[in-house]
């Protein structure tokens, strides 16, 4: 029953390899599983592709630290700039990191598509712009649309507010963001949860992510998003 619960962050991340494509939940710092990300730093794996909304905003910590240590080869994201951290821009200007820039809604839908078994979809977002270059465009229902493909991942790192032993999850506030769709899109889904409750304690009507998507759970209490 508690097969998915692991004792430590190191256990949660065991087996992760160089070259992995890793999804990181969060918008701003809310719902971003920083303890797992810093575990990735400890693990020392490199040549990573990160899929997330931003590209780090806390110099010396978490995603920014991975970038500083040159462990990340490529970012797939919608907004790699941050007021508090210029690191991505510096690496990008020097040609030391690749960028696939994706409109935020297209990013979300491509992740959702991966988890939902959708092979591709057309969206009006970015039609006629630089971000549609090299992609098939077609007029559907009178509207120019762009063909977009799913984004899969080897690993998804998720920050939940509450989990039970089989990985049914709820989130808190705007910490939900990309977490539920990323949880479904990866081969291996790893959850950092503030609260771990007994089986049966969660109201089935309120569960946002069902445990079917979750592989490993590590209990990290008292995490508060930095402000």
């Amino acid at each position, binding site marked *: 029953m508690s097969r998915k619960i692991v004792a430590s962050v190191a256990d949660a991340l065991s087996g992760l390899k160089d070259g992995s494509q890793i999804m990181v939940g969060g*918008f*701003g*710092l*809310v719902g971003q599983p920083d303890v797992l990300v810093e575990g990735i730093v400890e693990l020392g794996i490199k040549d990573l592709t990160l899929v997330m*909304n931003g*590209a780090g*905003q806390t110099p010396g910590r978490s995603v920014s630290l991975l970038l500083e240590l040159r462990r990340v080869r490529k970012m797939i994201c*919608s*907004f*790699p*700039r941050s007021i508090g951290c210029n690191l*991505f*821009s510096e690496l*990008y*200007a020097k040609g030391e990191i690749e*960028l696939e*820039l*994706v*409109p*935020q*809604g*297209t990013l*979300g*839908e491509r*992740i*959702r598509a991966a988890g939902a078994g959708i092979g591709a979809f057309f*969206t*009006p*977002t*970015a*039609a*006629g*712009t*630089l*971000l549609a270059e090299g992609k098939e465009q077609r007029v559907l229902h009178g509207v*120019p649309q762009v063909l977009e493909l799913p984004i899969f991942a080897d690993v998804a790192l998720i920050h939940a507010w509450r989990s039970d032993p089989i990985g049914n999850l709820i*989130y*808190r*506030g*705007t*910490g*939900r*963001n*990309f*977490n*539920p*769709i990323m949880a479904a899109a990866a081969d291996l889904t790893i959850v950092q949860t503030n609260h771990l409750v007994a089986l049966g304690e969660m109201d089935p009507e309120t569960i*946002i992510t069902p445990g079917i998507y979750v592989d490993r759970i590590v209990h990290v209490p008292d995490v*508060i*998003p*930095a*402000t």
Partner: protein
Amino acid sequence: MSDFKPYGRTELARRVAEDIEDGWYVNLGIGIPLLVSDYIPEGREVMFHSENGLIGMGPKPAPDAIDPWLVNAGKQNVTIQPGGALIHHADSFALIRGGHLDLCVLGTYEVSGTGDLANWATNDKSIAPGVGGAMDLVVGAKRVWVIMEHTTKTGEPKIVETCTYPLTAVGAVTRVYSSLAIIDVDRNDGMTVLEMAPGLTFDALQARTGVPLRRAPDLVETPLEAAQ
């Protein structure tokens, strides 16, 4: 040179707020557009959507009442109104693309006479580009209003025949609230001036605009004295 008084930023935010109708769901872009929420007239029920999954966004919290788990699209701490709802990112953008938002308000570098919009990137290759949700919002919302300076710091028109910066979307803007005028935009029919800053003549506005403008039937030139 005629003497006129441009609209200030808070005045534009107030004007936009006055034009938002009771019952609308509205997304406000980062920066000046966010000010709009401070000026919604009393008694109008308007729900603000933040694309990171918050419907019913409320004002900035008091310093001693910050919930670190609630931020807006600009990553600033916000509150949630009674009746608010939380959703995940794919749902948040489904409601955007699905045409359920009544209005999106945002800033821009340039607008073309047919409503093309360029607000996400300059041509400076040394800066990493960031697009966020702008491209989704402007193709999805029922109305797209932009708040902007009418000209650049050097006096060049920001309303142009063809945008020189990378496009956010083609034919998306439906109204411009500029420092000089309020202008309706139709992607087939071009631009119609609804209101002008006090003291400004139509000819002076046209001289500062890169595309031909049309007068709304009830457009008036307000003398500067009358506005003071």
